[in-house]
């Protein structure tokens, strides 16, 4: 559902690598031309109707890639339609009550729901989490540094995008707009590292933003925060560079983890992760499957009940953390700009 660049450049290419597990049956978009063009490419049927997807018994798994505002409604509808599993692109919903409702419906219907934070499924992260052992409270510094060229460049590396929507002009002279852009940056990009970050934080630790600055153009943020005793150093900058560099570091008293993720969209294999100790370091090998492919394989196992679903409460808590962070970042940007 939703046949924009995420479907075209991420999910259909990922699904093409797991044809033994999945067949694309329907592509739904409110724009029939887009739906048709994308469906033709995948050998699927096009539709503009949500119910046509949900009522089709041949559709067993649904991926929600529509605009954020529709995520909650469509995920709940897919669960109630009795699908085997649902993948919802991030963010799961636009509010916590909506997310709690999704969790409740998922539990009541027994339909597992996962969120498309693909780096959570990356084999390098899975390796690192297993090697590290107990994560919670074991790092005193977390650094997430996401330097990316504009998305369009990587969409074009991945596929030919049909009917790309031009971004609306925004008045970046307005502090409220800049704060909103940083908020979007946290929810749309920073969200990818939230599951990793939260794994290391004490479960009840509230986030406290000490400094935030919006980075333009087109967006990004420069944030220093803390949660409990843990220092959070968060940088995201999407700008006119060719050189992507996406790193996540967790640093503890005697151990440190560094993960170098591949950029979004492209099928560049897994991340690489290194765990440093006092006198040695261990690095996992890069595997051919990236987080998107692993995400689909995870969904396959959930759909066939070969794997126990992860409690949605963890996903809701990730969302709560990201929303609190994004709101605080926007507030601090406005405060600092008003102050200066």
């Amino acid at each position: 559902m939703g046949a924009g660049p995420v479907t075209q450049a991420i999910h259909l290419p990922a699904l093409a690598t797991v044809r033994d597990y999945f067949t694309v049956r329907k592509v739904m978009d409110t724009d029939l031309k887009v739906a048709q063009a994308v469906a033709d490419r995948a050998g699927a049927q096009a539709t503009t109707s949500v119910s046509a997807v949900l009522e089709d018994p041949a559709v067993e798994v649904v991926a929600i890639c529509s605009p954020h505002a529709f995520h909650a409604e469509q995920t709940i509808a897919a669960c109630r339609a009795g699908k085997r599993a649902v993948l919802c692109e991030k963010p799961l919903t636009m509010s916590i009550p909506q997310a709690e409702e999704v969790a409740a419906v998922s539990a009541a219907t027994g339909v597992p729901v996962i969120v498309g934070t693909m780096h959570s499924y990356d084999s390098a992260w899975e390796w690192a989490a297993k090697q590290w052992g107990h994560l919670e409270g074991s790092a005193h510094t977390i650094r997430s540094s996401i330097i990316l060229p504009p998305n369009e460049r990587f969409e074009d590396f991945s596929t030919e995008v049909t009917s790309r929507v031009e971004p609306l002009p925004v008045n970046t002279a307005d502090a409220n707009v800049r704060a909103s852009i940083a908020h979007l940056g946290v929810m749309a990009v920073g969200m990818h590292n939230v599951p990793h970050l939260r794994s290391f934080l004490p479960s009840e630790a509230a986030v406290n933003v000490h400094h935030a600055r919006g980075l333009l153009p087109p967006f990004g943020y420069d944030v220093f925060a803390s949660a409990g005793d843990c220092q959070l150093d968060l940088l995201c900058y999407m700008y006119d560079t060719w050189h992507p560099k996406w790193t996540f570091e967790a640093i503890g008293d005697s151990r440190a983890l560094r993960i170098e993720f591949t950029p979004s969209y492209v099928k560049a294999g897994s991340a690489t992760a290194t765990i440093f100790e006092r006198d040695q370091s261990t690095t996992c090998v890069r595997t051919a499957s990236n987080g998107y492919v692993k995400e689909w394989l995870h969904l396959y196992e959930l759909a066939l009940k070969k794997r126990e679903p992860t409690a949605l409460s963890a996903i809701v808590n990730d969302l709560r953390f990201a929303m609190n962070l994004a709101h605080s970042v926007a507030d601090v940007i406005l405060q600092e700009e008003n102050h200066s």
Partner: protein
Amino acid sequence: MSSNLARTVWLDPTLNHLAGQSTLSSLPQSLLQTTDRFSAAFVVLNGQRRNWTELYPPSATTSTIVVDPQLGSLPSRMQPFVLDSPWAANPGCSTFAGQLQTADWQFGECCTIAPLSEDPKQVLFRAASLLRACGLPLSSIEVLFGSATGLAAQAQSGDHPVRISISLTAAALHRMSVRAFTATGAITGEFDDPDLSQPARISITDRSGTLLLPTIWETGHRAAWKRALTDASANDAPGSFKDQQLITEAFTRKETP
């Protein structure tokens, strides 16, 4: 300093840690060691010694190298000295500064991972020295978050914001890195163990790609010696004092509600 007559150097005997060994191993062969600090042409002082400023200067004609001065130890009126800071003395710094001079950069970043035994304030002092040597002298610092294992600070270098992140660990990945973001890329400096001659990696990323500038397999200690021997105007005292003052004031503000 062109005479071949024996020139003498007095090495602070408390420099017995790795930095001292590295300083000694890079001692120019034209210098002879002496135990008489007052007659020496060069003195090398251990800036980590609590009372090092009392040993300084032995005479007006002495050239002085100060190794890793401790934060809070610099008096406001200092005689000239060459700073042998673990990171700022790295010869890659001048390469970085040269590139930065002609770049239209927007904001900077300094990320540090230092040994767990260090004091984060002292590491911040070294980071400020590194930034100064790389052409981003700090004009203000605000400490945002601090603990025994790290700190975060927001600084300005002129009109440019500079983010500083320091983290301490016993894990073996100690490094300092500096990035200055430009409209189409960045100038990046990655500095490894300061007592080894592993070269800093200074690179420029722009539309045409990433260029790794020639590497220099020289320790900061050796580079400090070379400056002391060849650069008569070398004087890092004012900059170091300024950095120290900014950091001290920043911590005073942070600790005063």
